[in-house]
């Protein structure tokens, strides 16, 4: 979300879910919303039913394309060219919102300058989208207001993910679609509490509420509150920690409720890193591909057996309530971490319940200051919520941006880190399915879901399948520079020629064995969405599967 911070000064969904249904225009780029955020998918359909225009930009023929007025089937990794191309059309045709730009934004000239590199021939060639469609999409988005822009990991999981995000912000500002109902730049966050984990400072560079660790004032504030000596040097991201473990610089890890073995890019590398550790503790509700590597496994309770809060993708903090007693001796994650901290001699880890932790969060986090359990009984609250009288904030940047003026950022197109070549001629892109969740730790325990989607398949375009002599349902071997997996081929027009697609939920055919952990330089997000692979018929020989 670093991109949005640069542009607006704040990196979260600018508007709320229920506004989407009232938008006159929706640009959904890099999001398979009906599968990954089904209930937000309903809002999009609602807007379309009311006569709203829908522009879908996606390399795959997802369900949403059925409802779209314009479908831009751009090549994976070409989002910047597409978005900048649209901006070029808007500027050339004078469709920008001059009054808004004048009043609220800065640095337009630099953007204009950088747009010179995006003449439509280049854009058409890079994206594979006919120029007429790009022009049509640009006109619709610029003139049909209010317009909202939605994106998911299809935008961020690239080595140029931060640039992608800034490009979406440029486009929204250029057309004045910020700070009003049913507008905005709206990253739809994938996991249930990824927004909350970021808000709570489970990140190497910030405390709660994005208070930077490098800022001496913040350091002092938290040192006083916690009674401990703190460090102003930002730490390592998960991917960097895995690299450090690989190099022997990190010797012990404590993993709370994650399954990096399947979720990190380049599974073999992650697994090697975990195996090199001297000591690994994993806390989870089930055995996973990661707990198997552990020295100690601590049993945690599920969300239905504990109290707490999650923050959804629209910054809304909502209660999680204990519904049933814990299974066996399982404990809430906070309780376990508390016990370890106390045994290690730390002070300030004597919480009696989750509500007490929230009061401490309220005191130290301006944007969460007014979000108390008492208030949450009446329903969720959207941050920023600076005091207990504040109603919460459904729309960000209404009067001004968090950073003052919205900043147009000039962007240079960079191709993905790994492009197809003679040896690995196809582009692999990965994503989620409606019927499984994340690494499947939970959902694969549900027989009904497995009945519907119980194995990872690889989607191949009929033309590529024909060239390779592959039939629908046949087992194939997919190989990248990092490893290979086998999976059933699903021959389908859903993906375009030269592009293959896999879900990442399945350990047996683990897509992340193939993916590239090349990082975006700012956000440090691995390039899950583009890597080069080749596909072969699985001819008798045993596939070299790592897990």
């Amino acid at each position, binding site marked *: 979300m670093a991109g949005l911070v640069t542009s607006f000064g704040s990196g979260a969904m600018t508007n709320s879910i229920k506004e989407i249904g009232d938008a006159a225009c929706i640009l959904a780029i890099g999001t398979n919303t009906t599968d990954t955020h*089904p209930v937000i*998918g309903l809002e999009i359909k609602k807007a379309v039913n009311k006569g709203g225009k829908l522009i879908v930009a996606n390399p795959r023929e997802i369900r949403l394309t059925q409802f779209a007025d314009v479908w831009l089937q751009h090549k994976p990794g070409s989002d910047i060219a597409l978005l900048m191309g649209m901006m070029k059309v808007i500027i050339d045709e004078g469709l920008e919102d001059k009054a808004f730009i004048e009043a609220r934004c800065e640095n337009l000239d630099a953007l204009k300058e950088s747009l010179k590199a995006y003449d439509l021939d280049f854009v058409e060639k890079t994206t594979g989208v006919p120029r007429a469609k790009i022009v049509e999409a640009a006109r619709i988005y610029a003139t049909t207001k209010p317009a909202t822009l939605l994106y998911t*990991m299809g935008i961020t*999981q690239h080595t140029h993910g931060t640039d992608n995000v800034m490009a979406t912000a440029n486009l929204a500002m250029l057309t004045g679609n910020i700070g009003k109902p049913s507008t905005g730049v709206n990253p739809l966050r*994938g996991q*249930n*509490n*990824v927004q*909350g*984990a970021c808000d*709570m400072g*489970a*990140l190497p560079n910030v*405390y709660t509420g994005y208070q930077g*660790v490098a800022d001496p004032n913040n350091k002092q504030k938290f040192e006083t509150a916690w009674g*401990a000596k*703190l*460090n102003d040097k930002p*730490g390592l991201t*998960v991917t960097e920690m895995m690299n450090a473990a690989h190099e022997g610089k*990190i010797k*012990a890890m404590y993993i*709370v*409720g994650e399954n*990096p073995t399947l979720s990190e890019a380049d599974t073999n590398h992650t697994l090697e890193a975990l195996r090199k550790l001297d*000591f690994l*503790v994993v806390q989870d*509700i*089930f*055995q996973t591909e990661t707990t198997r590597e*552990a020295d*100690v496994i*601590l049993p945690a309770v599920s*969300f239905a057996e504990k109290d707490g809060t*999650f923050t959804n*993708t629209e910054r809304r903090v*909502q*209660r999680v309530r204990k519904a049933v007693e814990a299974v*066996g*001796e*399982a404990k*809430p994650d*906070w309780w376990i*971490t508390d*016990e*370890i*901290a106390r*045994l290690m001699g*730390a002070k*300030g880890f004597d919480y009696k319940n989750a509500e007490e*932790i*929230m009061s401490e*969060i309220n005191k130290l986090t301006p944007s969460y200051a007014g979000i108390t359990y008492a208030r949450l009984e009446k*329903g*969720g609250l959207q941050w920023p919520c600076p005091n207990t009288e504040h109603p919460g904030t459904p729309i960000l940047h209404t009067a001004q941006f968090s950073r003052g003026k919205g900043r147009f950022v000039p962007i240079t197109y960079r191709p993905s880190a790994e492009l197809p070549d003679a040896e690995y001629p196809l582009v692999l892109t990965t994503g989620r399915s*409606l019927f499984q969740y994340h690494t499947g730790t939970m959902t694969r325990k*549900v027989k009904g879901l497995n009945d*519907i989607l119980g194995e990872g398949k690889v989607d191949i375009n009929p033309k590529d399948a024909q060239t390779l002599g592959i039939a629908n349902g046949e087992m194939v071997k997919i190989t990248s520079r990092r490893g290979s997996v086998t999976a059933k081929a699903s021959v389908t027009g859903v993906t375009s020629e030269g592009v293959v697609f896999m879900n990442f939920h399945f350990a047996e055919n683990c897509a992340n064995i193939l993916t590239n952990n090349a990082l975006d330089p700012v*956000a440090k*997000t691995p390039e899950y969405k583009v890597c080069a692979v080749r596909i072969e018929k699985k001819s008798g020989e045993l596939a070299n599967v790592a897990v």
Partner: protein
Amino acid sequence: MADINLTIDGKQVQAKPGMTVLDAAKLAGVYVPTLCFHPDLAPYGACRLCIVEIEKMRGLPTACTTPVTEGMVVKTNTPQIQQFRRGVLELILTEHPHPCLTCWRRERCGPFDVCLRNVDVTHRCVLCPKNGICELQQVVDHIGIEQVEFPYVYREIAIDRENPFFERDYNLCIVCGRCVRVCQEIRGVGAIALTYRGSNALPGTAFGRALLDSDCQYCGACVDACPTGALIERNRKWEGAGERKVLTTCVYCGVGCQLNLTIKNGKIIESVPARENDVNRGQACVKGRFAIADVVHSPERLTKPLIKKNGKFEEASWDEALNLVASKLGSYKKEEVGIVASARCTNEENYVTQKFTRVVFGHNNVDHCARL
């Protein structure tokens, strides 16, 4: 816009423009029986159960489709209306099993009791999963039907069990169309439609295919919309109403749908999307609707701390496990320890994890899998 004043059964009501007579009646606390009406769907006006008398209007208009106007005088409960409603219901009941509906002993009858009337098992409410939580029952009880004049014809349709999550028993269907409309209007899927089999219109997939071969997304919206036992979640079929409900937030994606978990005997028996909120407003998806109880109550859950000894995990006490973890983590140089928090855990837990890292190890090597 100004409020609209009207009178319902002698009560003064101030309604908002755009409201229907049915909405206004709810506002006034007057019960009007309905069957095809659903608050999230466009007015349909098919079952005619909600008819009322309105001064200066001819006939018996349906409350669910008639907009309020200034000065309206509405009666909802005259003998004529009740007579008409009884007729409507009796007609429905010629195609719906009703012996129990008109039997005074129903509430005291258990599934295995000997039936006073010697009724076929397939025709008994007391053997229907919806017994006690059925809208049709409530409506019949309100209007009061002692006996049905016409003979009941059993449709003899095989129960459809061809999908993993819910069963479709169209012998119990009253053709209110709520399932079809929710699938089309709210979900935008249209997996089912009213189809004709002989003279009867009934909901079904195109060409009577299995749901698995249709566009169905298994969201369960049709199950939640159904007023009878025709659509029933398989796992909770015989559980009845449950003991209590707990409102919580779904764990399966960033939408954060509000879900009501129904609890019985310490177990979750179902998870139904909550309506009163600004997030999901009565909707969910297959994961939040059908994939919660099986996960929470999975026999594969970890129940005890495990310590790996000679390459094998062995059960340990919390004391042993925690002491081992604390002493091991304390034995490295601080920068040699990395901590991974979780986007699946609560805010409070993530707060504690990052505080733990920063306070105990004096560095910032804490992160979670936010980037995917």
